[in-house]
C-alpha cells in the first residue's frame, strides 16, 4: 500500500510538472487583457487574432464556456463578468439593459464618428439599439435565402431556380426533387428548414407576433396561422420536408447552427432555407456545387433578418479599452474579414458593396453573394414586445410548435393556445412591473381613442 501511495504521489508530481511546462504563456507585460464571451469557432478566433495584431496594446481572449445570457447577467452583476459579450436578439438586449450590465455607448461611438443606425444593416438594429440608445455594435448581419444543390437539380433534370418566387411555385419544384429509394426511404428531400425560422412564415403571410404597440399577442390571426400551417403542410401534406422522425434519422451532430446544415452538405436535401453563414460549414464539402436564390414568399415579400451584436459590460474596469474592440468592428479590416469568412454579412452596409464581396478570389465558385445583399435590404428582424419576457414567450411558442411539428395540432390550434398563454404572461408582467403598467396603460388608452 505504501509503495502504491508513493508511486501515485510521484505520478501526480510528474503530471503537475508536465502541466506546468505546457501551460499557456502569460501575455507580455503592459498589454490589457479583454475577455470576450462568444462562441468558439475558427472564424471567431481569426477575428480576435486580427484585432490583436492591429492593436498590440490589447489582448482579446475568447471565453466560450460562459456564453448564454443567464451566465453573463449573473456573472456581470456579481462583478466577475466578461468585458465583452454577445447579444443575439432584441429581447436579450432589453434583458441586458434592464439588468444594468450593458454599457450605453451612444456618446462614445458618436465621438468616434460611428452611428449604428446610419452604418449598419437595419435587421441588426434590435441587437444593438434599445429605446434610441446604442449598447453595442453589430458583429454581423444575416438573412435567409434558399441554398440549392446543383448536382441534385442536374440529376433530376430540374432547371436552377431564379429570382423571386412564391411558395406555391416552390412546392412544385420541391416535390419533383424529393426522391425515394426502392425501400421507401427518402434519398433526398426537396426542402430542409429549421423550425426556428417560423417568424418568417408568419410575416410572409402578413401576420405579426404582437400588435403594433406590443400590448397584445396577435399570433393567432388567420394570417399568422396560415404561415405556420404551411410549415406543417410541407411535412405532412406536400411531403417535401422531413418529419421530426425522419429528421432524427438523418441528424448529424456538430458544426454551426444545426444538423440541417450538415444534412444539406451531405446531399440529403435539394434545397434548404438558411443564411450565408452556412458557408462556414458548407465550404468543408469540397464536392458540393452550391447555388443560392431568394427565398420563396407568401402574399408578402418579406424575409427574416437577424444578427449578433457585441456589447460592453458596464461594470468592467476595462470598458474604455473594450470600446476599441467595437470601433474595430465598425472598421474595414473587420468587415472585410467577416465577408471573406462568410460569417453571415459584414455589419456595415458599405463594406458589402465592394467587388471582393461579390467575387472573393479565394472562392471563385461563390457567385451568389448578391442574393444575400439584395434580401438584406428587405429583411426584417423578429418582433418583440416590451411587455413580455422574450424567453417566456419563446418557451410558450416552442411548446406549441413542437405539437404542430409532430402533427398533433394544426397551426391555428397551436397559435391560438400560444397567443392566449402569451397574453396571460403580458397581464402578469404589467401587474408586477409598475413602469410597464404605466406604459401599457398609456398605449392601450391611446389605441382606444
Amino acid at each position, binding site marked *: 500500500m505504501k509503495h502504491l501511495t508513493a508511486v501515485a504521489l510521484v505520478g501526480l508530481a510528474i503530471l503537475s510538472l508536465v502541466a506546468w511546462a505546457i501551460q499557456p504563456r502569460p501575455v507580455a507585460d503592459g498589454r490589457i487583457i479583454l475577455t470576450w464571451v462568444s462562441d468558439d469557432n475558427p472564424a471567431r478566433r481569426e477575428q480576435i487574432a486580427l484585432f490583436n495584431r492591429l492593436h498590440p496594446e490589447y489582448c482579446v481572449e475568447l471565453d466560450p464556456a460562459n456564453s448564454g445570457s443567464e451566465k453573463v447577467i449573473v456573472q456581470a452583476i456579481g462583478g466577475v463578468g466578461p468585458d465583452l459579450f454577445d447579444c443575439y436578439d432584441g429581447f436579450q438586449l432589453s434583458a441586458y439593459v*434592464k*439588468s444594468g450590465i450593458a454599457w450605453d455607448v451612444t456618446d462614445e461611438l458618436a465621438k468616434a464618428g460611428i452611428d449604428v443606425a446610419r452604418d449598419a444593416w437595419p435587421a441588426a438594429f434590435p441587437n444593438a439599439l434599445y429605446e434610441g440608445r446604442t449598447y453595442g455594435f453589430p458583429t454581423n448581419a444575416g438573412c435567409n435565402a434558399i441554398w440549392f444543390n446543383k448536382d441534385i437539380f442536374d440529376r433530376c433534370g430540374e432547371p436552377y431556380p431564379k429570382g423571386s418566387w412564391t411558395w406555391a411555385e416552390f412546392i412544385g419544384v420541391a416535390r419533383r426533387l424529393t426522391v425515394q429509394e426502392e425501400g421507401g426511404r427518402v434519398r433526398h428531400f426537396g426542402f430542409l428548414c429549421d423550425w426556428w425560422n417560423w417568424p418568417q412564415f408568419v410575416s410572409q403571410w402578413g401576420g405579426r407576433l404582437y400588435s403594433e404597440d406590443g400590448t397584445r399577442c396577435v399570433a393567432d390571426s388567420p394570417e399568422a396561422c396560415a404561415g405556420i400551417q404551411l410549415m406543417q403542410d410541407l411535412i405532412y401534406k406536400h411531403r417535401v420536408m422531413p418529419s421530426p*422522425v425522419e429528421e*432524427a434519422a438523418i441528424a448529424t451532430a456538430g458544426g454551426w447552427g444545426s444538423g440541417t446544415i450538415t444534412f444539406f452538405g451531405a446531399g440529403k436535401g435539394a434545397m434548404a432555407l438558411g443564411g450565408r453563414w452556412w458557408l462556414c460549414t458548407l465550404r468543408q464539402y469540397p464536392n458540393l456545387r452550391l447555388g443560392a436564390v431568394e427565398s420563396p414568399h407568401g402574399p408578402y415579400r418579406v424575409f427574416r433578418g437577424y444578427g449578433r451584436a457585441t456589447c460592453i459590460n458596464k461594470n468592467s474596469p476595462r470598458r474604455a479599452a473594450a470600446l476599441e474592440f467595437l470601433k474595430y468592428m465598425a472598421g474595414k479590416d473587420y468587415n472585410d474579414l467577416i465577408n471573406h469568412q462568410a460569417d453571415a454579412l459584414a455589419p456595415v452596409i458599405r463594406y458589402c458593396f465592394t467587388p471582393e464581396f461579390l467575387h472573393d478570389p479565394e472562392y471563385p465558385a461563390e457567385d451568389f453573394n448578391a442574393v444575400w445583399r439584395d434580401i438584406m435590404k428587405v429583411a426584417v428582424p423578429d418582433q418583440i414586445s416590451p411587455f413580455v*419576457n422574450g424567453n417566456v414567450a419563446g418557451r410558450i411558442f416552442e411548446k406549441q410548435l413542437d405539437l404542430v411539428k*409532430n402533427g*398533433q395540432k394544426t397551426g391555428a390550434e397551436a397559435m391560438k393556445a400560444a397567443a392566449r398563454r402569451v397574453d396571460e404572461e403580458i397581464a402578469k408582467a404589467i401587474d408586477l412591473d*409598475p*413602469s410597464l403598467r404605466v406604459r401599457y396603460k398609456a398605449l392601450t388608452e391611446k389605441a382606444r381613442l
Partner: protein
Amino acid sequence: MRPRARHREFVPAMGFLLPNFLGFLVFTLGPVLFSLGVSLSNWNLQRTIPFEWIGLENFLDLLTNQEFWLYFVNTGYLMIGMPAAIAGSLGLALLLSQRLRGIVAYRTLFYLPTFTSGVALMILWKALYNPSFGPINAAIEWLTGLHGPEWLLSTANLLGLDVEQVGLTLKQWGLGARDALIIMGVWTAIGGNSMLLYLAALTNIPLELYEAAQIDGAGRWQTFRSVTWPQLAPTTFFIVVMSFIGGLQGGFDQARVMTAGGPAGTTTTLAYYIYTKAFQEFQIGYASAVSWVLFIMIFVITLINWRFGSRELNY
C-alpha cells in the same frame, strides 16, 4: 473530565472543525437561507421591477399555475422506474455476491455506468433511441415486425398523461420521451450506488443465519425471504429514501443534454423548471419559491417514509 482539560481539548477541536464549518456556513447554509428569503420577494434580474417583499405570493401563484403542476406530474412520472431500479440493484448485488472467478471484473463492469461521464452516456442513449436507425427500434422491428416508438420525439406515455393540462387522455397513450428517460434511468441505477450498498449489506449478514436456515431445511427462496430480505431492510429503507430524494431533484441533466425539456415540455421536471425560471427568465424569487416547495415535498415524503418505512426495520 476536568473543566480545564475540557477547555484544552475544545480549542484544537474547534481548529479542526472550523474550516469545514465555515465552508458549510458560507456555501450551504447561507445560500439555503438566502433562497428562503428570496422566495418571499419578487426579485427579478431585470431591474425595472422594484424589489419588494411579497410574502407568500410566489407560493400562492405557483399553486395555481398549471405549468408547475404539469412539471410536478412529469417529475413524479419519471420516478415510476424506481422500484424496478431498486429490485434490479438487489438482484445484481445477489449475483455479484457469489464467489465466482473474476467477480471483481464483473463488479467493475456493472459499476461502469456510474463512473462514466453522464453526458457521454446520455448522448449514447440518444443514439440508441433514434427512431429510424437506433438499435432499440431495430431490435423491436426484428422481434415483432412492428415499427418501434418515436421515443425522445414523442409526447406519448404509458399513462396517457395530457401535454397541456394535468389529466389523462387516450390520445397520448403509448411510449415516448418520458418512458425513454425512465428506461435509461433504470439501466443507470441498477449497477449504481444502490448495488454497492446492497453488496456491502449482503457481506454483513451473519453466516450463522444461513447455516441455521440450512439446518431447518429452508430452500433458496425461503432463505431469501426469511433471512436475506429482513437483514437488508435497513439498507433498502435507506435506498428508498435516497431514491425518492434523487428522483424529485432529478431530470435536469437529461433535459439539458437530451431533450431540452421537450417535446412540448414533456421531459421538463421541477429541477429543470427552476433553472428555466431563474436563469432564462430571470425570475429568481419565483424560482426560489419552487425550490422551497420542492424541498417541502422531499421533506414530507422522507418523513412519511421514515414514519411508515422504519416500522419494518425489525432489528
